[in-house]
């Protein structure tokens, strides 16, 4: 999966070795760099679709990386609509794609009327 990632770590010697944490995305285990945002971690792990839009249910992914555009919304540890570019990745995080307007109750997906 990570082989298809749109972004990869810069090669080269770095003074602090990147330590990694384990997270889960849509049930898949991922090893990602510690200390980065969830959005950066997912991008480097090959995730290219973070959510589907609420009207046409088309795929969306981070656009601004600074908390302005709200395209990177995902569900983190059961809480929907988190801005993944502003949340730092933590070991054991369970992250899910957000499909359209998410149900808050049971994680079922639903589209629009």
């Amino acid at each position, binding site marked *: 999966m990570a082989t298809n990632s749109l972004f990869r770590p810069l090669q080269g010697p770095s003074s602090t070795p990147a330590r990694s944490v384990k997270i889960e995305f849509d049930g898949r285990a991922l090893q990602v760099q510690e200390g980065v945002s969830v959005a950066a971690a997912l991008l480097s792990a090959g995730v290219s679709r973070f959510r589907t839009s*609420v009207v046409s249910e088309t795929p969306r992914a981070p*656009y601004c990386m600074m908390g302005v555009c709200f395209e990177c919304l995902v569900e983190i540890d059961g809480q929907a609509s988190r801005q993944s570019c502003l949340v730092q990745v933590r070991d054991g995080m369970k992250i899910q794609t957000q499909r359209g307007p998410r149900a808050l109750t049971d994680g079922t997906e639903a589209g629009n009327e």
Partner: protein
Amino acid sequence: MSDIQTGDRYDLAVVGAGPAGMSAAITARARGLNVVLLDEQEAVGGQIYRNITRANPRALDVLGPDYASGARIADAFHISGTVHLTGASVWQVGRDGTINYLRGGKVSSLHATQVVLASGAMERPFPIPGWTLPGVLGAGAAQILLKSADLAPSEPVILAGCGPLLYLLGWQYLRAGVPIKAVIDTTDTTDYVRAAGHLIEALAAWPMLKKGLKLMSALKKGKVPFYRGATNLAVQGTDAATGLRFTVGGKDMHVDSKVILLHQGVVPNTQFTWSLRAKHSWNDVQLCWTPDVDAWGRLEGLPNIYVAGDGLGIGGALAAAVQGQLAGLEVAAVAGKIDAGARDSAAAPLRAELAKQLRIRPFLDVLYRPKDANRVPADAVTVCRCEEVTAGDIRGYVALGCSGPNQTKSFGRCGMGPCQGRLCGLTVTEVIAQARGVSPSEVGYYRIRPPIKPVTLGELANEA
């Protein structure tokens, strides 16, 4: 009954930890005020100096000396004795200096006698066909990935648009050995002719101009395919970007890439100042709204609230630091910590420095004025990304008597999504202005209301 916990009182609250915010805090602290600074990030730096306190030597080398200079301000800030609330999303700034914020899932509030808003800039929206596809990001966003996570595109990347940040990123990628597929520049020769009128002023700011030329020539030396005067930009792809189509010199071109970085300048992030109902003016050169302020950055009609940095109009990091210091001096004077004489003598060299920093702006603003077609798009193009409202939809509302952005919310939920109009506001104003044949000034902007950042019902009910 919920009670939002009301917290401490400060002489000064600063919102934003970029160069302007840090400088305002440092200056006020140096005069003995008690200062709190709130910022969304975990570390200082804002966007321009993002991650500066944690950047490794190699990253500093790739990003270049301008970035590295942010470390000096960060160091001064850390020893200033400012209370720094990290990871704090400010969702309301009241006219009386009340600040409501969300931190660690908890709603809190504090009160400050004076407030400096330093929420900086954001990339100008770039509404073209396909700009909502995954794989399309702002060049600034890509730069944040580089600064904060050491990430670069894994395949040859397209840089499209115009403006210093686009070329800077190209230069940084070259230094880092990241392959660039093409730079597709929307600047055309007439822009150079128009900008030439400002060349004398710009030459006075020679070091900066030289820096710009260095970036451009580095890109050219890097043997990157460089297309100038590109029009009709359209991102290709159905559920992710696959390439960019454009026209150069009457010829239709196509370049493949899964990562397309768009940029056409940055604009002030004015959510706070609009939400305070401050007076704004349309800047026809920078094509954005700027709040009306006095020489210290004080908002007209709001004597206790100041703006510093790119939120006043785009001036860059060095100008922002100076504006932060000026606001800090006036805040200290109002608080009675320094007299007018001391304030003015400290301010004099700062004003000279600010003038110097801003000298190159008219040249850059004219040279890299984003093209009309990339700001006021064709009917089919999505303008409001959240609620998926197109330019054609908006023109349809105008035909039904919609005269301004606030009615577009009622007509079709335009601007009513999570981003609260940040990514569509300027476009909506300009689309309506064009459709009505009046100035953006007459059309106005969205009424921005708190919460400036969404807050959950649970957080609001204070049960979170």
